[in-house]
């Protein structure tokens, strides 16, 4: 049995290797005929109403030969990127229309950010976001942004430190931790918020600031959506209020009036945690929000000696007060936008699924009646190098 078994398997091996050779290299795409897209902007044309898609494509410079001189080469003649744009009834059609200009298909797997123009956002994103979730090349970790005016302008703003604008935007968003005035929203987060019928998804808002002849990109806050339509924007403080509640604050600056009210103490947030427990007491929804954070005194403009226990305690209360104001500001804003940006609805749904069935339909009326009881505990853990301020006024020495 052994001898002919080997012989037969040998023939089988030959057949196995014969098979692929016959069918040639299908589905192969050389790197050169790839249009690497690193950023996309979606706008709406006023008259015809169809989609204006601008894709930022990497222009591989022709000087070739190694990455070293490529950077040099890229400098003088033109930027290393090219904003190509095209129109179409839907996004996918617009993506394919671009091939009239570039000759090979867009390769959108390396797309860092998708920027929606203001007009598209206000009209409603359901129609536009579907392609970005369904396209197999699209990464779900790509970022979503909303621009104050037109998305194409944001992609044209030429950054100083970075070679490509889209990369620059992505870096701006990813490093939100330093000020935590907004938070990074990727495709999947946005989709999951849009799916739930009560939650109001948020997305960072990009605006262009014209400063001495060159345009710069500036993230001016967050845009709130209600079932896909942009209903309003939050400025930095309101946005940070939301972050406090969601526990996404990484670091940032809090300015607090000093105990003797002449000047301020400036504190750096080291760590922040939050826990939200929904509760229903005799038909009234109460949200117990518990925020714990650690701050460090990083600067003071008063001449008062703050490094005493009483002063530190007073500052701690003042910080808690500031945080409370921020959270309440965010809550007020969400009330007049009628958008549940904190996701209280989902929390209720999870805890009280039975009562939730009744509340769900008229959630817009019930949401403003929610009462927040916030207790904040902030601790100053270090005052960095200085114990006493440099210029201390005489009487307090």
């Amino acid at each position, binding site marked *: *049995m052994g001898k002919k*078994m080997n012989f*037969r*398997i040998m023939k*089988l*091996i030959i*057949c*196995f290797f014969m*098979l*692929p050779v016959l*069918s040639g290299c*299908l*589905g192969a*795409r050389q790197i050169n005929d790839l249009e690497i897209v690193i950023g996309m902007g979606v706008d709406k044309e006023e008259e015809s109403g169809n989609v204006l898609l601008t894709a930022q494509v990497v222009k591989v410079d022709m000087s070739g030969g190694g990455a070293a001189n490529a950077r040099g080469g890229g400098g003088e003649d033109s930027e290393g990127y090219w904003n190509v744009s095209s129109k179409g009834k839907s996004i996918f059609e617009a993506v394919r229309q671009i091939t009239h200009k570039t000759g090979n298909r867009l390769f959108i797997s390396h797309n860092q950010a998708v920027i929606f123009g203001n007009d598209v956002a206000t009209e409603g994103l359901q129609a536009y976001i579907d392609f970005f*979730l369904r396209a*197999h*090349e699209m*990464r*779900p*970790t790509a970022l979503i942004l909303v621009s104050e005016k037109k998305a194409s302008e944001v992609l044209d703003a030429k950054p100083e430190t970075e070679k490509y604008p889209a990369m620059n935007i992505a870096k701006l968003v990813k490093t939100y931790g330093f000020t935590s005035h907004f938070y990074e929203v990727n495709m*999947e987060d946005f*989709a*999951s918020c849009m*799916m*739930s019928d009560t939650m109001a998804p948020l997305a960072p808002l990009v605006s262009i600031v014209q400063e001495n002849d060159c345009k710069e990109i500036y993230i001016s806050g967050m845009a709130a959506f209600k079932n896909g339509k942009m209903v309003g924007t939050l400025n930095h403080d309101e946005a940070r209020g939301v972050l406090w509640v969601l526990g996404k604050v990484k670091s940032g600056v809090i300015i607090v009036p000093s105990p003797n009210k002449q000047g301020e103490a400036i504190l750096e947030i080291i760590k922040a945690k939050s826990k939200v427990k929904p509760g229903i007491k005799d038909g009234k929804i109460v949200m117990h929000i518990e925020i714990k954070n650690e701050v460090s005194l990083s600067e003071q403009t008063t001449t008062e000696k703050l490094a005493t226990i009483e002063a530190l305690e007073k500052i701690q209360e003042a910080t808690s007060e500031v945080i409370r104001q921020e959270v309440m500001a965010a809550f007020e804003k969400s009330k007049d936008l009628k958008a549940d940006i904190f996701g209280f609805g989902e*929390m209720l*749904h*999870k*805890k009280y*699924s039975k009562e939730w069935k009744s509340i769900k339909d008229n959630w817009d009326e019930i949401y403003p009646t929610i009462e927040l009881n916030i207790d904040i505990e902030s601790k100053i853990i270090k005052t960095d190098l200085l114990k006493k301020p440099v210029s201390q006024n005489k009487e307090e020495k």
Partner: protein
Amino acid sequence: MSIEKGKISSQQLLFLIAGFVHGSVLLIDFTVGITEHQTWMVILAGLVITVPVIVSYVALAKRFPGMNLVQINDMVYGRFLGKIISIYYIFFFMMTLSFNIRDVGELYITFLMQDTPFIFLLIVFTATCAFAVAKGVEVLARTSHLFVVTGLFAIISTFILLIDQMDFSNFLPLFELPFIKIFQGIHIVSVIPFGETVVFLMIMGCLNKTEHAVKNTLSGLLVGAVSLFIVAIRNTAVLGRTQTIWTSASFQSIRLINIGTVLTRMDFLIGIAQTILMFLKCSIFLYVTVVAISQLFGLKSYLPLVLPLAGIEVILAATVFQSPVDHATITQNAGIIYSVPLIFVFPPLSLLIAKIRGLPKPERGKGT
């Protein structure tokens, strides 16, 4: 006189079953569409239901040592009825094999390599399975522990990498879905990953020592079930509500891994691990189909039938469904209903009949 001369140890059987159940790690997405965030409960329930059935498989195999399913059917149900039941089993083997091959094809068509022609993927994959089957079951059994290790490594590493994106409150509204959906979920889980181990009735014939076969089979099943459980928890925790909208939830959760700029694009590696596991599963299925058919026709060796059957399976896999949607809906309804008698009814029934008629009587053992 069974066709297969090879002998496998019961420890290898453990790894074979674990690798086999692993094979369908991506497949629980059928149930995700129906039982959104309660998939983990459905898996446990499915496991609990199939354990006694699988113990009956092992008992049946121990009662007829050295004989595969077709021979057992002949002896228990007599020549004519036994043949019909065997043909029913062979139909089930061929259909499930074409589903699995199609799954590998779909995995590559929708996620990894979009513009390669579908039939080409199937041909190459089935050719490799045929090559492995031509080497015999012993080789598959010997290498099965490598497959199980890769499978476990892939699952556990993705679980750890996704821990920080996990939000365990997604499980919370516990018993929210209507019971009919839960029942369908349990039915699917108990058929697709666990019920398919009925094919091992063909392989258990060539166990050399059968004393702790039950212990090994159950631990193999347990390893497979634990890995399915981990994947279910990972998907629900990471994706939460969006689990139901993706074609394949676990694939989507893997694409969300984004640690530093290095560990971001893991989906291809997991695709590879998935292909390796599906390779083991499809090779076992192809082997079982080929042995069953050649046993039905009373051939001396199953080798000549490997390639023609592989050819049939390729065309079958290419044409059985039009699209993944078609594939999902039909398997969720007709697919699992028609295989219920095979998995839950016939083996325990033939065990019962064998006990009553006191088989296997040596003198009447006139198996083919």
